[in-house]
């Protein structure tokens, strides 16, 4: 069982040591560029010329390529087939039997798949190189409530345990004769004896965890400090502003081009 619901891979790389907010700004800029600029090849270029090289810098390119490929490939195949074959009236490129692939459909699929590839690869790069707790800490520093960030980070760590407990309850109830397979009615009947223990035990856990964090002064009015020092520099701060400027330019270009 994994210890946390996170994709983060610990590496000693220049990408890993960046301030999480810089990586947030980079992610947002790349996504904005891919969606705001109309040409279909833009997304593919960003992935090939920026995202993949950055993943190599972060020493996670294998994981990025593997995960992105797994997610995007099935989608890409279905989009090309559906858009190509069922575009409606358009310029036929080639035919298979009575069906023909349309140029306009293929072009649209090319654009759509490119954007999906961009979204998946950019978020994957971010998740592989950013620890969730440091991200939350950085967000707390810019004003996000500490209780909210606590909820997000604990959900990431506790979710695998929740899944494991659910599996244990299923096995326990099965050993008592509960039938969990079969037609939909049988499965529906099995829901209550499975869900109730899970919910009740989780509520008990929540109360105990609340006591545990209170015992460690979670609601203290003292300004909180942090064991982890999140790196930041004037250079990174300037870089973030540059990213914001690039995003504004991309959006501006899109608005002007449309008009």
């Amino acid at each position, binding site marked *: 069982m994994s*210890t946390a619901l996170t994709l983060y891979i610990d590496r000693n790389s220049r990408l890993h040591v960046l301030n999480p907010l810089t990586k947030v700004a980079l992610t947002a800029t790349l996504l904005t560029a891919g969606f705001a600029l109309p040409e279909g090849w833009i997304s593919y270029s960003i992935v090939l010329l920026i995202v993949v090289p950055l993943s190599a810098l972060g020493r996670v390119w294998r994981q990025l390529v593997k995960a992105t490929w797994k997610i995007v490939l099935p989608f890409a195949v279905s989009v090309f087939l559906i858009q190509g074959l069922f575009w409606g009236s358009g310029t036929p490129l080639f035919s298979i039997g009575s069906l023909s692939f349309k140029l306009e459909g293929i072009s649209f699929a090319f654009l759509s798949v490119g954007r999906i590839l961009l979204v998946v690869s950019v978020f994957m790069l971010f998740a592989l190189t950013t620890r969730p707790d440091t991200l939350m800490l950085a967000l707390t520093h810019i004003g996000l409530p500490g209780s909210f960030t606590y909820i997000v980070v604990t959900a990431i*760590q506790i979710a695998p345990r929740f899944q494991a407990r659910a599996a244990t309850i299923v096995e326990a109830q099965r050993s008592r004769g509960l039938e969990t397979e079969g037609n939909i009615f049988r499965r529906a009947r099995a829901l209550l004896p499975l869900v109730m223990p899970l919910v009740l035990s989780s509520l008990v856990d929540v109360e105990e965890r609340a006591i545990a964090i209170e015992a460690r002064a979670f609601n203290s009015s003292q300004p909180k400090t942090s064991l982890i020092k999140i790196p930041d520099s004037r250079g990174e701060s300037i870089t973030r502003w540059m990213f914001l400027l690039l995003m504004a330019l991309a959006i501006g270009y899109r608005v002007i081009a449309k008009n």
Partner: protein
Amino acid sequence: MSESGKIGVSILAIVDIQGLTYTYPTSEKPALRGISLQVEQGEFLAIIGPNGAGKSTLCYSVAGFVPHFFKGKLEGKVQVAGLDTQSASLNDLVLKAGLVFQNPFTQISGAKFTVYEEIAFGLENTGVPREEMKERIERVMGLTGIADLAKRSPYALSGGQQQRVALASILIMEPEVLVLDEPTSQLDPIGTREVFQVIKDMSKRGMTIMMAEHKVEWVAEFADRVLALSDGEALLLGKAEEVLTSPRLPEHGIGVSRYTTAARRAIQEGLWPTGRRLPVTLVEAVEGFQRGQA
């Protein structure tokens, strides 16, 4: 050094409970009735009793969670390190009385990815500077024997290891009283031994400890005094060797040491020396039976 042989024991009462009666919000019957006791600084007080006797409620009362977390109706007075638990805030009280309870898993905050960071969680909440945090983490990891676990995920540990991390997380806040509510009830024998070793070390260092526990043989080894609760009331309060061998314990469904039970039976057979105190631990039993044979 005091008579008990512990460092820094004074005769100052650090926990003062007067006529404590408490009823949970959803209950009609009080969970505790008329409890009065004082715990001296550096003392180890064990709390025993059957399920539902009020052990956990008493622990929560000392740590301030009764009444601040559980609300309900509290009568009487509880003072911990000079703070009245009803008028002081829970944030102030948890700095005086550190609470560790049964379930090692739910005591992991979930907010940290390594043991090293987990231990510092309480210090972050109280605004301790980073360099001081690091010093205290190193010290506490040494005290609790978890230095080799520093880089591991708190969720990748055994129950005994998690409970030691929970102990470290509380000890690092330097409470004046350590309140333990059956800290080994969900642990295997190895985990139990690991946790009791830490508790024993803390006691030797002069820490004031209140511990609710079922394992009377361990209690006999550590406790200065024992409070036996039954149905929310104080049944017995006195020296460990006197309380743990009292015939009133089994009458009220409170477990006794197997060695005590064996010796009681041996008395009937004339195998236990007349007038010799009943044993609680294995060592006492062996000595007694050897004397009886001689």
